[in-house]
């Protein structure tokens, strides 16, 4: 039913070809957005004529299979974290995470809630933080340009870190998701 195999550790690639690949990756960011709160509202204007993210080659994809970037926006509850993990692991490598808004990054105003994560980094590898409550579309675009720069420089390696330290992440995830029923890796 579900594939239970653990992922292989990705190798290191360098050289001219990899630079070209990274250029292509940076200029063609396909996004799957996971919005539980106000962040989802702020993402919509990005597609409109005022901000127009398509000029950077950023496009929305409705399925994680075809996406490169996962935008997590709004506070993350333990319940939603499970879904985010599944979505993230279903994205094909290389993949990046943008954490959008204070609540996502550190719990924000819900820091003392019984249900909201305080430190996202423990559970998923974040490449770019866009802070604010909520960040405006300009800030999001700023975040994207930062991500593009990181990819071009070959520094956006969160997905490698995640795969290499899967045990660490799993331990943290399983600590708060008490009814863990996901497979070992969500292919």
């Amino acid at each position: 039913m579900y594939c239970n195999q653990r992922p292989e550790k990705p190798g290191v690639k360098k050289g001219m070809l990899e630079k070209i690949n990274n250029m292509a990756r940076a200029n063609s960011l396909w996004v799957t957005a996971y919005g539980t709160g106000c962040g989802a509202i702020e993402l919509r204007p990005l597609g409109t004529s005022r901000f127009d993210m398509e000029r950077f080659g950023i496009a929305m994809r409705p399925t994680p299979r075809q996406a490169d970037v996962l935008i997590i926006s709004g506070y993350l509850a333990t319940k939603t974290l499970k879904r985010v993990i599944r979505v993230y692991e279903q994205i094909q490598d290389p993949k990046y995470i943008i954490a959008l808004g204070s609540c996502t990054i550190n719990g924000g105003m819900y820091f003392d809630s019984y249900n909201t994560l305080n430190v996202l980094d423990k559970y998923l590898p974040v490449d770019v933080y866009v802070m604010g409550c909520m960040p405006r579309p300009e800030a999001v675009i700023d975040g994207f340009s930062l991500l593009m720069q990181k990819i071009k420089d070959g520094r956006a390696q969160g997905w490698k870190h995640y795969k290499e330290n899967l045990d660490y992440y799993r331990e943290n995830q399983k600590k708060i998701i008490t009814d863990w029923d996901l497979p070992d890796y969500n292919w």
Partner: protein
Amino acid sequence: MGNIVSIVLTILGALSWGLLLGGISRTVTARIHGRMGPRVTQNFIDMWKLFKKTSSIHHGGMFWMAPMFRITGAICVLLMVPLVIGNSITYNMSFAGDIFLVIYIMFFGCLGMALGAGNSGHPYAVIAVSRGLAQMSSYELSFSIAVVAIAVGLKTFRIEGIVEAQQAGILSWNIFRFPFASAGALIAFLPMQMAYPFGIVLAPQEIPIGPPTEYSSRFLSFMFSGRALFGTAKLILFVSLLFGGASNWISLLVKTFLLYMYPVVVSSVFPRFRTEQSIRFLWFVPTSLALVDLIRVML
């Protein structure tokens, strides 16, 4: 040997042209929306990125083979149509069959993609396939009536023959000789290119991206190149059928470009039909248009 070189060049050229046209269409759509739009080379970048993604998954044999089906089907259509009339080396494989063969071989890729979508096990992919097949069976009706009317009117099924019959000036183009059949075929062209208001297959609002929902990475890049090739092949086929073919490369590029812009422009100003509305529209409007010319030909 020259034939094989021509075939290889045709494939590569059609792929590039198809991707470029796709990029242009994205820009044009953006400009209609009042946006800047991506670079015209954006589709090449996307292709490259997808091709170079480091992991991918598959769901089974048919899922694995579907992009192959898609590309093969697209290239077959491409090779069955002569590119530049008078330049016999660009006729590729068109000696091997006539317009009926082209009509039926067009389904090869569609069926392959449908099978891949089916094997992916994703319900939305299959819903899209069911919609797509229902729509295809509807527009093929008017398209085939138009083709029969033209072929019977010109007394040949061979595409070369059809193109050669249109070489006596612009008024001998089939779009002027068979205006109703051409209108029917051109309306059928919209759903063929999955343009709105007929874009019920890749409806991202309700069935995420349709048949290729589960396709990722390199599979997706194959799918996209298949789509680009198929799009170009259909353009060349329509240019040959209705617009007098191409007597040189420039006219081929210009005509295919202009024809490509037609669904793009229509698409960006229309909302989407429901499936049954689309099917019914295609059953009645273009079919009755094409029938006018068929009756004319019969009499």
